[in-house]
């Protein structure tokens, strides 16, 4: 971080600071891309295992049964990955995919904190709380 003269709390109260915002955006954009590519790789690996084992079984999605708990909760997914299940690996990749935008929001808190923007730190915390409630509070924790 280059030494900058100590800024007033909001040097331009009506304008976001473009330079810092841009740098933050680029870091966040790369974070998202990395997360997506990583999760796609895990899904692809799971797909190979799943297809090798189940290629010739009939596919039927006409009737909704709901997934077994192995594919519905984080502990269940980890357990089925440990057991070498392809579908468990696919679900793990999808969990990583869902976690990627959540990580982006979490990193934004740090970004706004560096900019000393308390209002947006608060807004971001609200968004993160809603996301974590959905991710962990809806029964996925196990």
């Amino acid at each position, binding site marked *: 971080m280059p030494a900058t003269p100590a800024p007033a709390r909001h040097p331009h109260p009506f304008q*976001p600071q473009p330079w810092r915002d841009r740098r933050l955006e680029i870091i966040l954009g790369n974070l998202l891309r990395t997360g997506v590519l990583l999760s796609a790789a895990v899904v692809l690996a799971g797909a190979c295992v799943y297809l090798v084992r*189940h290629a010739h079984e009939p596919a039927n999605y006409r009737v909704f049964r709901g997934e077994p708990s192995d594919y519905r909760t984080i502990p269940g997914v980890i357990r089925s990955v440990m057991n070498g299940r392809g579908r468990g690996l*696919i679900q793990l990749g*999808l969990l990583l995919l869902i976690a*990627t935008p959540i990580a982006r929001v979490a990193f934004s808190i740090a970004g706004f904190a560096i900019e000393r923007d308390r209002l947006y730190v608060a807004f971001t915390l609200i968004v993160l709380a809603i*996301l974590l409630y959905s991710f962990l509070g*809806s029964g996925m924790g196990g």
Partner: protein
Amino acid sequence: MTVLEFTAIVAIVSFVAGLLGSLTGLGGGVVLVPLLTILFHVDIRYAIGASLVSVIATSSGAAAAYVKEGISNIRIGMFLEIATTAGALLGAFLATRIPTSALAIIFGAVLLYSAYLSRKPRPLDQRSLPPDPLATSLRLNGTFPDLEGQRSYNVQHVPTGFSLMFGAGALSGLLGIGSGAVKVLAMDQAMRIPFKVSTTTSNFMIGVTAAASAGVYLSRGYVDPGLAMPVMLGVLGGSLLGSRILVKAETKSLRLVFSLVILVLGLQMLYKGLWGRI
């Protein structure tokens, strides 16, 4: 159909949907659920779960490219995400409670509206609007690079935009789509955010919004790995290729074809919801 055949065909269809969605800017997610339910007879709940996952993939995958252009406004995005994530959570809980025929009817209506919107010329960017006190205190106003250099804009009607984005989030959570159509209403027409800024900012928001409902869908058993896998990989591959080629000259006729497809799928979904089985 065997698992291998099903996976291959769904992956190809999803790839084409992702490619067309990215080339036309209309988004691929909106056609996936009707295609899966009408062509492949997939239960609409499995289809919505798979589509939602693919929406996160395309939004996050495209974000890095959009960010380089430096026109998205992360403050507008974060502020409105309070509304969209809360709406998405509500939508996801509603989705588990309303009958699938009602889901199909709502989906059909959203498709018809999207088809109508895609044929309408985009609203002209309003220049030099007076600053709105609420938008100013929320620091939503900004600048973006234009042909004439940096252009500044003042965001309008914040409460209206915020409420509409709650609705967009609820639809996204209910139907497993990105809700681009409602976003146009909220950000372009109510808040008067310049088109370029609103498009890139909303792309950023779509992934976060979908993540809010994806947790609920996954824990309720709506995300089937065997179905979500070809859909997610196909749509992601198609949309990444689309953002690379982006042949500008061809998009006009492509848009027409794609909006006709959306129209037909919308009518089919309405028909299925009202008179058929879904």
